[in-house]
């Protein structure tokens, strides 16, 4: 049994690391106009979580397996059909959400959808920290390649970048970060952490360094303040509070930008 103080510490640490990595990866997703992909992809995890709960294995593994397979399917269909990622994810997401809600035991449904900070263990936190740091290091190595591919696929290819392989690696890393974020924020809201901090940062950035750093900071602050708020109000479902914090940051940035024009 985890004490309340330990659970808060673990949740806070997990939240901060997930927030930083989700913000960092999300900065690319927003640029690639794949914001909805980040959001919808998270829902694909629900059937995986359900299987983990039903068959008594770590739900994180189930969630990651479903996210991983979905990312590969979306990547492959995108290459074969030339349909946008958004179209493909939208189709897959509704199917996964429907299946997930049908098979997940009802008492666990709310926790899977909105997270639970009282259930974060030391192992969860360790996994989250290791995965966050690893994904950020890996994304840093492909960040410029992805941005170059967005500017022009031909330009990237002509300088030796394998755009398709880089995109696949990126989607897999997003799957990992989404999977670890589910514990804190839940499947329904984890996509928010990928999208909104980056959207806020983009408003006030004229270069990539500032943009990616701000996006990571906004992600961390949204997560941490959401977890603290949820603990303070004795509401273990942190997801909605993380969303509230993130939206507050987004609105503050928009207002500051708007006010600076006068």
């Amino acid at each position: 049994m985890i004490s309340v103080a330990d659970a808060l510490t673990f949740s806070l640490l997990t939240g901060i690391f997930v927030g930083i990595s989700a913000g960092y990866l999300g900065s690319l997703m927003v640029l690639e106009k794949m914001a909805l992909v980040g959001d919808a992809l998270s829902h694909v995890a629900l059937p995986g979580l359900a299987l983990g709960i039903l068959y008594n294995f770590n739900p994180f593994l189930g969630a990651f397996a479903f996210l991983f397979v979905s990312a590969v399917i979306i990547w492959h269909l995108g290459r074969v059909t030339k349909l946008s990622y958004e179209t493909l994810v939208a189709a897959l997401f509704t199917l996964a959400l429907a299946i997930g809600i049908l098979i997940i035991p009802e008492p666990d449904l709310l926790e899977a959808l909105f997270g639970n900070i009282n259930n974060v263990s030391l192992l969860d936190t360790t996994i989250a920290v290791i995965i966050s740091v690893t994904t950020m290091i890996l994304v840093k190595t492909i960040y410029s390649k992805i941005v170059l591919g967005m500017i022009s696929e031909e330009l990237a290819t002509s300088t030796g970048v394998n755009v398709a392989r880089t995109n696949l690696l990126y989607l897999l890393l997003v799957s990992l970060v989404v999977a670890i974020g589910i514990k804190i924020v839940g499947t329904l809201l984890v996509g928010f952490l990928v999208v909104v901090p980056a959207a806020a940062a983009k408003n006030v950035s004229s270069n990539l360094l500032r943009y990616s750093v701000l996006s990571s900071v906004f992600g961390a602050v949204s997560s941490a303040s959401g977890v603290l708020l949820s603990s303070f109000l004795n509401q273990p479902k942190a997801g909605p509070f993380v969303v509230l914090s993130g939206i507050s940051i987004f609105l503050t940035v928009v207002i500051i930008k708007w006010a600076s024009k006068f």
Partner: protein
Amino acid sequence: MESHNDYILKISNLSVKLPNETILDNISFELKKGTTLAIVGPNGAGKTTLFRAFLNLVPYSGKIEWDNKVKIGYVPQRLSVSDIPISVREFLTFKSTSDLENSLSSVGLDNSILNKSLGVLSGGQLQRVLIAWAIIDKPNVLLFDEPTAGVDLDSEEAIYKMLNDLRKKNEITILLISHDVHIIINYSDYMLALNKCMTFFGESKEIMKPELQSVIYGEPVCVEHHR
């Protein structure tokens, strides 16, 4: 006397075909080192596809033979930079972390532009930055797909003149796609007119001869290159 080593590029019977469409048909020509080749033709003539074949980005039949020591710098036609918060310095650093200032001064830009966002540059400035990008790792061949697209008429000539100066100074070979036959004629040594097949290849001045006006204005007639 011409030797085998005078040529940087030899194209023989190059064709690019889709299942139901021929994009390029039986193109053959040779290009000498240190010259400028202008590639002209109407929309859909296969100009960009020719570049893509040069860069191995599309499957093709026939032969594309570059000189052994070739190093290519490429600038495509369409870039999406308006929505990406990226500075000129960051963009150039993607390719090389040194010689940023030298590359910029070669294209007539000073260091103050390094911290500007790519999205706020004028059409002329952006084209110059792209040329700086192409030359930053010291290539000996430059491929430009419409280097003056989105640039006003005055800047257009300035860009062609600058490319010409770069070619002379650095002894590079330039291949560029252009719609402006009348301007590019003054800044290129050779001209290749395409309309899926090759309708003209020769010295640029020749294309203005009355008997060759049909290449630009009339019905295209495919020609074969004779060595």
